């Protein structure tokens, strides 16, 4: 664990001491090396599932895919931000990279934490760099509003979680994940246990986000700069899912009745947010609502607590992380050229940037869960698990899958096909950096087709 954490920590002095010409290549190269080392986490040979164990941190088949995804994303964020930060003064570029690295550190420690307290502290720590990214480097006045929504939604829902964790520590004497999974049902007085159940999950439900408390997500995703959008969509949402999966181990007998309203809300959210996607004019907003839609499926799957549900949730989280981040990168390539996120004004780019159209096609197909990509695997497993839980869910999940396909194709056709507007005829050609960025997003996705057991998690 330290062999990843120390290099990541030392990326901060690297970003401050590197010469201006070498700042971006250096940080890129070093974060790539860290990523390569982090791939070793994916191999799990332990019998108890926990490996790379030390008193504070460990990885297990649930957290290692997420950890690898987090480490994978840092070089991609650095690649994506290079262009739009080029005109900022050097000090600001260094601060930006420092913020990204801090975020990375807190995320690695959050996913690798063995104590729920450390997980909680790191969960809150991720808020600060993200908030700074959104409010300082966002593009419009609305970013202040977006930052406020983001901060206060997460904060307000996670403070009750702190109380719950403290009460849990008091009652059971421990908050270590290794021990908690072996505890039996925890006796709590009859009405308080409902509150206790809700508060322990609320923070993660808001982070996922669940449909009723999802308002912060479209704002934050749209107003954030590209690296902010990438990390938000790919990893920060998964913090919520991961937290839920860990917490629900101790919530067992209650969950059977109490999860009901949240599953309904999640499934209804899948349907509603996919429909909203069809009416969006802003490309980033469309991708943000698509994230809410996919995460609704994940939330429902985690809540039913079956082995297939948890497996499907994890596969979909990883696949969606890569796909959503790739979509934001594609939207950013459009934005950097035309300075507009409105879909009506940026049409017909297949004629002008054909290779970028290929990436658009693959990513949109991944978004609509095309076999044999892991997106489909995840969705299929989740839909089957939900079907086993109740026959009626097929209405929501089936309609959701249909509308997902509709808006993914709509997004592809609106941006790539159609008449080329006059003002787009002579756009800058695609940079190799952008092609590299998208290849690095889509390559893991394609490789996962061949060995999905790496991201199956411990439930299977």
């Amino acid at each position: 664990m330290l062999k990843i954490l120390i290099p990541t920590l030392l990326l901060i002095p690297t970003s401050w001491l590197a010469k201006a010409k070498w700042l971006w290549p250096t940080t890129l190269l070093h974060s790539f090396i860290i990523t390569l080392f982090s791939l070793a986490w994916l191999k799990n040979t332990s019998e108890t599932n926990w490996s790379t164990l030390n008193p504070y941190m460990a990885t297990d088949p649930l957290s290692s895919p997420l950890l690898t995804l987090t480490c994978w994303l840092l070089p991609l964020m650095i690649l994506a931000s290079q262009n739009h930060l080029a005109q900022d003064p050097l000090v600001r570029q260094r601060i930006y990279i420092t913020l990204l690295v801090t975020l990375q550190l807190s995320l690695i420690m959050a996913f690798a934490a063995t104590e729920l307290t450390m997980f909680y502290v790191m969960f809150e720590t991720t808020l600060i760099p993200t908030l700074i990214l959104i409010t300082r480097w966002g593009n419009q006045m609305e970013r202040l509003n977006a930052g406020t929504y983001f901060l206060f939604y997460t904060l307000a829902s996670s403070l009750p979680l702190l109380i719950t964790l403290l009460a849990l520590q008091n009652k059971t004497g421990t908050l270590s994940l290794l021990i908690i999974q072996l505890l039996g049902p925890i006796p709590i007085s009859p009405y308080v246990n409902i509150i206790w159940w809700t508060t322990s999950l609320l923070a993660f439900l808001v982070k996922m986000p669940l449909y009723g408390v999802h308002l912060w997500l479209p704002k934050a995703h749209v107003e954030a700069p590209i690296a902010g959008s990438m990390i938000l969509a790919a990893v920060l949402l998964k913090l919520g899912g991961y937290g839920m999966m860990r917490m629900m181990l101790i919530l067992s007998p209650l969950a059977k009745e109490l999860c009901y309203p949240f599953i309904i809300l999640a499934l209804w959210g899948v349907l509603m947010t996919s429909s909203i996607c069809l009416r969006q004019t802003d490309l980033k907003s469309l991708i943000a609502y698509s994230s809410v839609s996919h995460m609704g499926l994940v939330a429902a799957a985690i809540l039913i607590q079956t082995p297939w549900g948890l497996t499907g949730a994890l596969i979909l989280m990883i696949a969606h992380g890569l796909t959503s981040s790739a979509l934001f990168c594609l939207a950013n390539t459009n934005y950097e050229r035309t300075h507009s996120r409105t879909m009506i004004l940026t049409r017909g780019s297949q004629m002008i940037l054909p290779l970028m159209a290929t990436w658009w096609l693959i990513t949109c197909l991944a978004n609509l869960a095309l076999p044999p990509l892991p997106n489909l695997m995840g969705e299929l497993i989740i839909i089957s698990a939900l079907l086993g839980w109740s026959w009626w869910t097929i209405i929501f999940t089936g309609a959701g899958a249909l509308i997902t396909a509709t808006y993914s194709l709509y997004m592809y056709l609106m941006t790539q096909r159609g008449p080329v507007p006059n003002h787009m005829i002579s756009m800058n050609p695609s940079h190799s950096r952008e092609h590299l960025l998208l290849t690095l997003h889509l390559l893991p996705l394609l490789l996962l087709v061949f060995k999905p057991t790496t991201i199956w998690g411990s439930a299977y």
Partner: protein
Amino acid sequence: MECPEGVLLLLSFTAIFFSCEHTVPELEAQLAAMRKKAADALPGSSWSPFDINPNLPPERADIVIIGGGVMGWSIAYWLKQKERVREGVKVIVVERDLTYSQASTVLSAGGIRQQFSLPENIHLSLASADFMRNINEHLGVLNEDPVDLQFNQSGYLFLASEEVAHIMEENYSTQRQVGAKVTLLSPTQLKEKFPWINTDGVALASYGLENEGWFDPWSLLNAFRRKAMSMGVIQCCGEVTDFKYTVSMMTSPGGDPVVYKRINSVKVQMPKGLEYQMVECAIVVNAAGAFSGKLAEMLGISSNPKDTIAGTPVPVEPRKRYIYVVHCPDGPGLDTPFLIDYSGMYFRREGLGGNYITGASPKEADEPDTSNLEVDHQFFEDSVWPRLAYRVPAFEKLKVTSAWAGFYDYNTFDQNGIIGDHPVINNMYFATGFSGHGLQQSPAAGRAVAELILDGNFKTLDMRGLGFRRIMAQEPILERNIL
């Protein structure tokens, strides 16, 4: 020794006791102020800790329309009309003078005619007249007063002398073919219809029967503006002083270097002061009227060699024209058309009290100075009145009650509008250079530009003939009926 908190408490009570000698209204005012402060602190209020000038335009917009005249607002309206989903595009209109003291729109005589020689012009005016006849269908806003353009459909009357009568006949057949309702009158028919005309020297007259006349330009401008703002267009009062653009050097297939420019943001300066805002935008529309040429110069066009595509300047410059309001109680009656004489003089009825608006185009050599809008009354005495009195004898006895001057956005190349995108500046669209007939073509021209931007091509009327190509290729399409 009393504890310090007690002393403080005692002091505060004393203070409150002594301050109670304030009167009740003052206390109420204080309470209202406190309530207002509390309301500001709650969410939903627009208070913000940053003390930013609220008049600044937003930091980014999709389409920036430079120029808040009738052309600019028409384009804004049509963009919103065609956007298909609510808030599809973010449009802002930048106008530097909201009193419109120098804008061509409001200083115009307000006439509309289809009697052009170019089919594109006829189409534009015909479509615009149709728009204005049904204006409340298009520009009516719920719960607001209906739009009243005071559209007097009294028609235009062009008089031709012997030398130019054949041109008038050719124009007449073009106009009829396109669909304008025009008729030709011989001098006797003319005298029969309008007995106050002196038909000496007139060989042929062309009279518009429908969709021609005059209207109130200020009402049209306000109607467009009100409707567009109700649909979400943001109005900004400021002046565009600079552009930030990226340049890409390419070579054409023939081997010549071509420099493409793409506007990244527009610098909008606040009217009285140093504050400015860089508005990041995807598309810029140049609807600045008489000042379009100067605006395009900010993009550094003139720094390129003169005979290349990139170096061709936008050939629009302001030309000053005078309008005189005269009062003649014995003048022509209420059915007076907008008469245009072959000598360049024109007049029309204004209101019902025997007032008329008149003017004339100066010769090319005597163009007045365009640095101000001062009226030259000698011009009326020398050039306008003699021709007026010759054509309409009743006008020998008249009194000039007022006069004003306005700018034509004069297209020095061929005096016809330029509608379309620039070949070298990628994301700038033009709707300018109409040389005196912009107001009457504004609804249809606005629609054409909106179609170009949102649909990629002209859909209802094909205005490719009015694009920039003709200027690049140096092929003027001259309009033979310009006054």
